[in-house]
């Protein structure tokens, strides 16, 4: 069942809410504001409350979420979002706070931020953490700016950041945004950074290497200690894209591997909901030498009081207003408290177990480019199916018919017809079995069935080419 647009439902004269009467003198706006500042018309829709609720409720039903089914979107860690965290993150005591209210009146909020920072530092093996970045990419940007400021403070001008060919698009984009040249380093046949090539690339012009570990193939960078050594010896820094930290929780810490900076994806690793594309949160942890460059303010503790410290002369400044996505921080904090250290490790163990179990069940049916122990996710290739004219996209769409959200496809770029699958620890073996069976069935299905999929959704496959050629980005009368 399709749903019309709000603009098509609305009609002149309907109202969606009742507002208080004006209890102060009702002066005409023209008397308070010069006419040229006043708008003539406000072309917003007009609907009644029942129509609004029904419209958006129906829209929600055209969506899938973790709460409705497996969502094995590789690299995104679509894990279950505990309900108690939602409840906590809606307590008036934690949400009805003005960011500029006096410190003495937000000690609870500051304490939460302080403690979350400490916990993240502990988990990542970092010395100091900023909670300001709003998402992973924002954390990367912050990290790149800190690297820049660090070298500037040492009066060094370095221009390059090395990034593996398997990296997420935000990595080169973030580096470029800070004026760095993104240099690609190839992956070797085991799916890891080619250390020989890396050795050739690293010199005094390299500010940093940006690694995702486990990388986007779901593989642990086995030579991480050697890589750290190469880069550090040339005076460069190691940046860790922590998008895949779920695999390492309580098991290994990027800080111990030689990483100097690490961003956390609270919406991935720490179970805060993805919200249909955000809000996320991308705190950045750094080693002690880089701490002076963190954005302001930092939350610090003085005796029993928590303070916002703006007195950081070397700080890069601010990457957004206020202090970060506080509402998201609450949920990550609650999550950590509900896990404890043992629970944290169990998360990693089960995430990795689930991924390896799925590999085992699927590798006879799909090409597995890197056949080794994986971490929390793995990448299959639709290469075999492609010989029959079937693309990864077709496999993905056909999975929808089987009741599953498709995996990430065509990423990482180095795998032909990539299907990147991340089950997470919050899926049961039974669900994994059913998912595997669906994929195995699909592996044998004919091209026609697959190419016309999905068959039971409110719309069939949509024409993306037409959408881009003649963009229709808004409704018009």
């Amino acid at each position, binding site marked *: 069942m399709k749903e019309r*647009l*709000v603009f098509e439902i609305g009609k002149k004269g309907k*109202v*969606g*809410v009742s507002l208080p009467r004006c209890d*102060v003198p009702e002066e005409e706006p023209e008397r308070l*504001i010069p006419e040229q500042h006043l*708008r003539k018309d*406000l072309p*917003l*829709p*007009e*609907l009644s409350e029942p129509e609004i609720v029904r419209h958006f409720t129906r*829209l*929600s039903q055209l*969506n899938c979420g973790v709460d409705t089914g497996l969502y094995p979107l590789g690299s995104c860690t*679509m894990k*279950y979002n505990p309900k*108690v965290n939602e409840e906590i993150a809606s307590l*008036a*005591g*934690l*949400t009805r706070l*003005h960011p500029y209210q006096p410190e003495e*009146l937000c000690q609870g909020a500051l*304490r939460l931020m302080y403690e979350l920072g400490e916990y993240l530092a502990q988990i990542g093996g970092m010395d100091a953490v900023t909670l300001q970045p709003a*998402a992973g*990419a924002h954390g990367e*940007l912050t990290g790149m700016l800190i690297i820049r400021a660090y070298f500037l403070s040492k009066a060094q001008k370095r221009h390059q950041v090395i990034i593996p060919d398997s990296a997420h*698009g935000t990595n080169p*984009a973030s580096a*470029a945004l800070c*004026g760095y040249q993104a240099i690609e380093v190839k992956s070797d046949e085991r799916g890891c950074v080619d250390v020989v090539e890396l050795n050739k690339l690293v010199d005094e012009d390299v500010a940093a290497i940006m690694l995702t570990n486990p990388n986007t193939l779901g593989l642990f960078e086995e030579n991480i*200690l050697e890589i750290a050594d190469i880069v550090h010896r040339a005076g460069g820094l190691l940046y860790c894209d922590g998008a895949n930290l779920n695999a390492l929780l*309580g098991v290994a810490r990027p800080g111990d*591997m030689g990483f100097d900076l690490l961003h956390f994806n609270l*919406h991935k690793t720490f179970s805060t909901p993805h*919200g*249909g594309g*955000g*809000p996320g949160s991308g705190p950045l942890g750094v080693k002690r030498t880089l701490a002076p460059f963190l*954005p302001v303010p930092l939350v610090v503790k003085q005796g029993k009081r928590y303070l916002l410290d703006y007195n950081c002369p070397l700080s890069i*400044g*601010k990457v957004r*207003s*206020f202090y970060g996505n506080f*509402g*998201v921080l609450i949920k990550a904090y609650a999550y950590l*408290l509900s896990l404890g*250290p043992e629970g944290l490790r169990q998360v990693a163990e089960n995430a990795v*177990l*689930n991924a390896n179990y799925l590999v085992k069940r699927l590798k006879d049916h799909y090409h597995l480019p890197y056949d080794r122990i994986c971490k929390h996710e793995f990448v299959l290739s639709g290469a075999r199916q492609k010989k029959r004219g079937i693309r990864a996209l077709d496999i993905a769409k056909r999975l929808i018919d089987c009741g599953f959200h498709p995996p990430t496809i065509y990423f990482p770029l180095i795998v032909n017809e990539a299907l990147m699958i991340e089950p997470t*620890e919050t899926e049961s*073996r039974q*669900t994994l079995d059913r998912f595997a069976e669906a994929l195995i069935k699909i592996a044998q299905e004919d091209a026609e069935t697959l190419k016309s999929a999905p068959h039971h*959704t409110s*719309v069939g496959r949509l024409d993306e080419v037409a959408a881009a050629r003649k963009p*229709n*980005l*808004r409704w018009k009368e």
Partner: protein
Amino acid sequence: MHYIPNTDEDRREMLQAIGLASMDELFSDIPPQVRVKAALKLPAALSELELLEHARQLGAENANIDDYVCFRGAGAYDHFIPSVVRQIVSRAEFYTSYTPYQAEISQGTLQAIYEYQTLICQLTGMDVSNASMYDGASALAEAVLMSCRITGRDRLLLSQTLHPEYRQVVRTYLQGMSVETLEIPYTSGLTDLDWLRKELDDRAAAVVVQHPNFFGLLEEMNEISQIAHRVGALFVVSVDPISLGILQPPGAYGADIAVGEGQALGNEICFGGPYLGFFATREQFVRNMPGRLVGATTDSEGRRGFVLTLQTREQHIRRAKATSNICSNESLNALAAAVYLTTLGKEGLRKVALLCLRKAHYAWREIAKLNGFPPLFSGTFFKEFSVNCPTSPQKINQVLLKQRIIGGLGLKKFYPEHQNGLLVCVTEKRTKEQIDEFVEVLSETGEQQ
């Protein structure tokens, strides 16, 4: 662990299926020397009941603005949020989903964003809107970067009446670029147009102004627009979306890029985040925009559907050459804004804006009657205004707090030249009674001088 469905038996059998003897073997690819030996130093697990209790206690250590009456704004506002908004954004299908890469099972999010984009265009009078940025400040930084890309110029003029944190964020974003930033001074609380006319030339990529500005005053947007365009600079504006219930939209005064903080549109004030940067521009610049875009298209049977589009601008396709590095944005906040704008609608948003306007002016007049609290500036304002206190605003606010009132923001935090300046915000939620009490307490502090 109740969040993990596997049982011990499952784990055993799964390990066996994989061909491993222990969980540890799953991590055999990690060099032993970097494996964590002891448990991490984290607090022991709390049960759900204990966790809730702990959270309530943390909450009790804060003064929340349900219990306190808030006259503080400065970029984060205590506007009314209809229940409908909370109800919709707590639908699990929305909040537990992610970026709608797979259009066919994400039509809910996609259509809602398409509606959001349209609503932002209607509100701002611009041609196109993206699907959201992190917040108002980073949206402005992206706008500035975009204007450099479009014009190929490397000089920026930022008004000092822009929110100081926004200026700071713009500067931070530009650190890696070779762009020169000039700040336009202000006079009588308004962007100094004479200065601007004098200093502006064709090196400028953009003139950036906030409206109403940080002091709450309305800027001469038509005039500034003309000045900017005369030298081929873009006019980039940051606007309060609630003010657009009655104020001219950026499209009407020729803005090239309109951004702003969308928190006020149905998003909880929440100690500063998550918020919502809205971002709208002219049709001709669409391929230069940062962020996601949703477009309408059709399926093979001709049914309308929605997809992510123009993705070649984005990092996952264009990588280092993308128009921005943004990936996750603030989708759920955009959904809240869409529900909010739909619920308030044509009449409602105008009413809210009028309530703000009238209540702010009522407060302003009542305060003006007091001894010792003259207005700081004489210009026209919307819902915020600045006054000069007879003593330090900090002291005054201490007194207000005793009456459970969170007073205005002391301007000296950002403007040392206004040691006793106080920025007061009055939204539609403030009742006459609350305003009267606020004024009453102010007058008492005044008399204590």
